[in-house]
């Protein structure tokens, strides 16, 4: 089936790849940063599980798989293109996109998808390399049904992250001071999504509160599904929550976009 206008978004995707690879030194340094985070968490969890082989109800293999898994999931979900939108609006660069025959949301999504796919491939290679070098015993999920549910939840997580990130960036229509709120958003996301540790090691009250927010659906839920710690019912419930958040944020983003565009002044023109 041919989608009208799909070709131009394919071009945007290709340009996104080329742009990422243009500054390779920067790209490699960026990946090295992620490797440091992965290794830091690996050693902390290894130290905590070295005595009994378990910690906080997790087997060592599960925790290490969680750490290595989030390296790939972070690469797949946390994109930077939607973050750039705030800067573009504040600097007036956004005006250039307005005269382009493309949908800004789709354009940003495809640009981000290009970046994410490239990072995910690299992250997978990093995980395989360090699993080999450190002789890590990773949990390989072989249950096809679980893998299928996991993949759907990852796609939903990617969509949800994008909508959240894009809507926060659009706040730049109202204020020149959008980067501070973005910085705050990024750290709330890192913490509340489970991008550093499984959320259920926190106190039950805090865990329940975080579970009600959209962030936990981005990293924590897919990883729980992959590890087989969420049974089918819990996984479906989690995915229903993902869909509910996406359904909530799609009209919110469109509303912000519509209202924000009326306020846009084209700074620097």
């Amino acid at each position: 089936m041919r989608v009208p206008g799909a070709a131009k978004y394919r071009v945007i995707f290709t340009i996104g790849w080329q742009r990422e690879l243009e500054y390779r030194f920067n790209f490699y340094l960026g990946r090295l940063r992620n490797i440091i985070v992965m290794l830091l968490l690996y050693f902390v969890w290894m130290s905590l599980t070295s005595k009994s082989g378990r910690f906080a109800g997790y087997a060592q293999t599960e925790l290490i798989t969680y750490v290595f898994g989030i390296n790939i999931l972070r690469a797949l979900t946390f994109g930077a293109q939607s973050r750039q939108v705030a800067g573009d609006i504040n600097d007036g660069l956004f005006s250039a996109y307005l005269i382009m025959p493309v949908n800004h949301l789709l354009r940003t999504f495809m640009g981000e998808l290009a970046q994410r796919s490239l990072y995910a491939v690299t992250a997978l290679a990093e995980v395989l390399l360090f699993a080999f070098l450190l002789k890590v015993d990773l949990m390989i999920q072989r249950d096809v049904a679980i893998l299928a549910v996991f993949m759907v939840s990852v796609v939903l997580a990617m969509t949800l992250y994008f909508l959240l990130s894009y809507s926060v960036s659009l706040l730049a229509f109202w204020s020149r001071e959008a980067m501070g709120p973005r910085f705050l958003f990024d750290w709330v996301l890192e913490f509340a999504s489970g991008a550093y540790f499984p959320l259920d090691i926190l106190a039950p009250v805090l865990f329940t509160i975080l579970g009600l927010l959209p962030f936990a659906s981005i990293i924590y839920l897919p990883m729980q599904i992959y590890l087989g710690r969420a049974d089918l019912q819990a996984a479906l419930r989690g995915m229903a929550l993902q869909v509910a958040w996406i359904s909530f944020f799609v009209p919110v983003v469109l509303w912000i976009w519509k209202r924000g565009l009326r306020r846009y002044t084209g700074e620097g023109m």
Partner: protein
Amino acid sequence: MSIMNVIRKYIRIWKQLSSLAIGSYWSNRIDSAAYLAGKVFRFGFFLLMIISLFSFTDELAGYSKYEVVLFFLTFNLIDVLSQALFRGIYAFRGDIQRGNFDFVLSKPVNPLFYSLSRLTDILDILFLAPIILLIIYVMGKLPSLPGPTQVLLYVALVLAGMVIILGIHILSASITIWKIESENFIWLYREAMTIGRFPPEVYSPTIRALFTFIVPVIIAVAFPVKAVLHTLDWRWILFAMVYAAGFLGFSLLVWKASLKAYSSASS
């Protein structure tokens, strides 16, 4: 000009640059408040993570809860201090890229000093007070209360750590002159610094050696705490002092060499 006059001149310049920074932060109040909230959130998040870990265990790599918290707080102290004082480094790449560094070179001020300290992070200076108070509180909770000698050693090693971090910032600026696309280098250092959030014994001997001798983050962040906990031999203390001086000297030599290689982007 005598040494004292030079120091007075640079203190005056730093004060002027800082008052400009205060004006900038004040005129962007929403941004500043959100950045400060983000920093507090990040700090609280990691503290909460450490405390949560200790609800399942009594020790991490042989250290008790308050000892691990002291490592974390010392990491924050040094990180926040370097952010507050050397924030200008984050704008350095832009200066090189656009050729604005030419104007810096023509000012009657040391270009390295100006490039590092042109943007004092007032938010981080505000953040220093609660961190220092928490460090004092946590030191009081340690199984063995540190004496005046340990506290003095802690302060001296934090200063040595700051000298090392200054050296890393100078190296980063030098690399930027050579390799304009090295934006991520300073961010790479920021990630490497996070190794200091936890006691060094958590990591493998290879990683420990790498981050002690090559990227000396462990000397900068973990040594002060180990001195307080009586787990640092005097030879290591001496080594840290000599290493800090040597590292700064090396970074200044690299900076001089990079200045010779500088070719203005605009000319």
